[in-house]
């Protein structure tokens, strides 16, 4: 009996295998995004169409009904696509969690829209960080400079597009 129901529901549409859908839930098919920083909430349970995130394992696009997952974010651009338009926000790194009920939570420490960055400052910072990274400080200082240089390179790449 149940196998017949599963068969017909599979034939009807491409399902999210993990979710068990009732008949009255067809309305709530939007992804709800909560994008928060320690000092500010950029989005709070906002309904969006798609979110592109720079995960450590590669760039991903999250749509509604995504399988629950936790992704560590590298410094990069989070693009939030709503019905009215899209926004690009550079984040310093953090975590993105897709919850089972169509909810996406992004927690990062620092983030700002691309317009808030100064290409000149990024270039100067990158030059300085590269100098320290290839200089002769302690291993710790050089690694720290290497991390910063990676962030500046990602910023330059994002601003250049």
């Amino acid at each position, binding site marked *: 009996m149940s196998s017949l129901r599963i068969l017909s529901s599979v034939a009807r549409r491409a399902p999210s295998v993990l979710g068990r859908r009732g008949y009255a839930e067809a309305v709530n098919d939007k992804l709800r995004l909560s994008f928060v920083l*320690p*000092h500010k909430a950029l989005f709070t349970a906002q309904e969006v169409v798609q979110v592109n995130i720079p995960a450590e394992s590669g760039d991903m696009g999250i749509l509604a009904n995504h399988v629950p997952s936790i992704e560590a974010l590298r*410094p990069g651009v989070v693009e939030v696509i709503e019905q009215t338009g899209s926004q690009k926000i*550079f*984040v*310093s*790194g*953090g975590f993105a969690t897709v919850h089972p009920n169509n909810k996406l939570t992004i927690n990062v*420490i*620092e*983030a*700002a829209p691309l317009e*808030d*960055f*100064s290409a000149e*400052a*990024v270039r100067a*910072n990158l030059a300085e*960080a590269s100098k320290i990274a290839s200089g002769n400080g302690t*291993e*710790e200082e050089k*690694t*720290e400079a*290497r*991390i*910063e240089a990676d*962030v*500046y390179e990602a*910023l330059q790449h994002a601003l250049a597009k």
Partner: protein
Amino acid sequence: MSWRNIFTYNKFAQITARAVRQSLKEEHRVAAEKRGLTAVRYQQWESGQGGAHVLLSEELAAKSSK
């Protein structure tokens, strides 16, 4: 080889956050720099008596210069 051998994730996250703050345009950068400041002060208590207040950053600086 990577930073994981040297830093904790917390330290890594603070470094990247600092890098992002330093790259903002002037008007945003000033407000953001204040967010990067963290300070911890602790007090050792023994049998109901509080000890001296110790500022963590000062303690670490004194230790590293010894």
